């Protein structure tokens, strides 16, 4: 995809909130703020990486964008249109699909591969004859490197990597423009991860796809992403170009997160100091006031407890949500 095309926003989310009600005690329930006021946009043909530790709301963001969870508040804009009514969502489902994390539970064990891949075609009635459906399925299987003999087999007959390819073929069935990849490689072997990641790259070039790539493996994300967003406890803390964020992280959480990435050169590794955070991630049911990171932040001041810092553009295309970015750098 040319650089010029990358200027147009394909997906834009504004102040997205997703609260789940959790029962605490018999009659009381409290909102769990899985995603709290997150805004970002993804440009056409771009890959946005979304990283953060377990439970920080990455997956919820991905699912809420696709309206699998009804957003508590906030807006989702796709291609200049607000996605709101059921009719919008129905149309949206033909353009935006999802690849799931677990290649084992995301494929129905009672369906053949061709039925799994063909399911979105069946749901949207995207073919006229059986022959047309078969051809489309074989074409999709070709995209992801599966043989046509595999079509009549069941998911349990495949390895993890092959299953993930089936899942990817299914997500491509409706000819989407936008794919949410929810940790698509974290359940795979490292060698298979590389194959699948490269396949994502190739498919993006071939089909002009836009990805929201959710992962916790920072090296994988750096490899595939144009821009990277870092989440902590349901909030976006930093958003910048992939290389920028790796070379000059500003937010103390991103710094600590990136210092945990292993470096293959022992000399550099010894020179780099790991920033080890004290304490655990607080429960999202009981999030700290103000900046969510203040309980573990070495630079926290009383101001941090009072208000949540806004996401500000510190340098070109580099956004950080911190009250004292100058103290850290």
């Amino acid at each position, binding site marked *: 995809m040319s650089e010029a095309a990358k200027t147009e926003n394909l997906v834009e989310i504004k102040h997205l909130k997703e609260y789940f009600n959790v029962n605490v005690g018999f009659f009381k329930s409290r909102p769990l703020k899985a995603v709290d006021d997150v805004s970002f946009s993804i440009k056409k043909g771009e890959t946005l990486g979304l990283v953060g530790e377990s439970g920080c709301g990455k997956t919820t963001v991905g*699912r809420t964008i*696709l309206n*699998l969870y009804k957003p508590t508040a906030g807006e989702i804009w796709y291609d200049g249109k607000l996605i709101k009514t059921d009719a919008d969502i*129905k149309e949206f*489902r*033909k353009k935006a*699909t*999802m690849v*799931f*994390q*677990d290649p084992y*539970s*995301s*494929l*129905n*064990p*009672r*369906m*053949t591969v061709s039925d799994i891949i063909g*399911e*979105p075609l069946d*749901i*949207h009635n995207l073919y006229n004859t059986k022959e047309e459906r078969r051809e489309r399925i074989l074409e999709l299987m070709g995209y992801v490197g599966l043989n046509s*003999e595999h079509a*009549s*087999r*069941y998911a349990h*007959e495949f390895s993890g990597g092959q299953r993930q390819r089936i*899942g990817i073929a*299914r997500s491509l*069935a*409706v000819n989407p423009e936008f794919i949410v990849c929810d940790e698509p490689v974290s359940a795979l072997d490292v060698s298979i991860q590389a194959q699948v990641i490269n396949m994502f790259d190739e498919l993006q070039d071939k089909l002009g796809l836009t990805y929201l790539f959710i992962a916790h493996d920072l090296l994988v994300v750096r490899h595939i992403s144009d821009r990277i967003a870092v989440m902590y406890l349901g909030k976006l803390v930093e958003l910048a170009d992939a290389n920028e964020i790796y070379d000059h992280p500003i937010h103390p959480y991103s710094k600590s997160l990136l210092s945990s990435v292993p470096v293959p050169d022992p000399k550099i590794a010894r020179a780099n100091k790991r920033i080890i955070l004290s304490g655990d991630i607080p429960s999202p049911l009981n999030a700290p006031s103000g900046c969510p990171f203040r309980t573990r932040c070495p630079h926290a001041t009383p101001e941090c407890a009072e208000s949540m810092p806004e996401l500000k553009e510190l340098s070109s295309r580099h956004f950080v949500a911190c009250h004292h970015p100058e103290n850290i750098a």
Partner: protein
Amino acid sequence: MDISKLSTQINMDDFIPATEEEKEYMVQMRPSSTFFKDSVKRLLRNRVATVCFFIIVLITLAAIFIPMFWPYSYDQMLGMTPGKPVDNTFKDLKPFQYGASELALIDSGESVVPHIFGTDSQGRDYFIRVVYGTRISLAVGFFASIIVLIIGMTIGSIAGYAGGKVDLIIMRIVDIIYSLPDMLMVILLSSVLKVVMEGALDGTVLAKIGSNIISLFIVFGVLYWVSMARLIRGQILSLREQEYVLASQAAGARGKWIILKHLLPNCFSVIIISTALQIPSAIFTESYLSFLGLGVNAPMPSLGSLASDALNGISSYPYRLVIPALVISLIVLSLNLFGDGLRDAFDPKLDT
């Protein structure tokens, strides 16, 4: 190529490209095996279940086909010919005995189909009555289970998939139905329906089986679906958290599609197992209702009513009680053992 045996040079003749045929030979595709095929294989390995299955098939076929060619019928009183005096020699025959006119026929060289189990106090061939009774019992068991299956599956899957308030309301209704005494309901319904349906049934096929059996079906439909519904709801509650359900939702599928394509096929094993185990319990219910006189209308026999009738002559003709009781036991035992075999074969958690 002429090279020394000790040379390290590779003989390139050993490395010619494979022909298409050789490639074909190397690709060995095992025929795809489905979960169902695997389970049937496991089931056939279980001898007890296989034998029970054949017994059930045999009894079913016998119950269907024997009445078609048997010379006697279940309500024909032998020895009663219009315009002739009643021939009392046909009443209460012991097994393999014949009535007076039949003995005359045998003497004249003709063959007569024997009364294998004798006849009853009204001169009806007991064997064919047992066969008819089996037919009724099996039919009641089978159809009652189908009714339970359809209602339980529909309601259970809706409750499990919809969750929330819908689930809450349905499950409270289920709890209420659980608390009703089912026998009392059957008896009440049969006496009410008997009055209501008296005239309405005349001339239809249903008139023969009678309002009691219909009220039995209604009771099954109204009361017995609850355990099936609970079972299926539980299954669906756990299955709907699977990612393939989410994947289907992400592709735009609606509730009906997800239930029919994803959830129910994955409950399949539970469904057939509990249906197989439901049949004997329905047969049992029918039998003891008939025994209490709430079953099929006379002269139609069922295994329970045959046993009940036999009580009158129990000291002289004990086999009239033993035969239908044995048939009930055989059917129920076979179905139960077969159901257990099904569970072992279809429950993958037991198979490690």
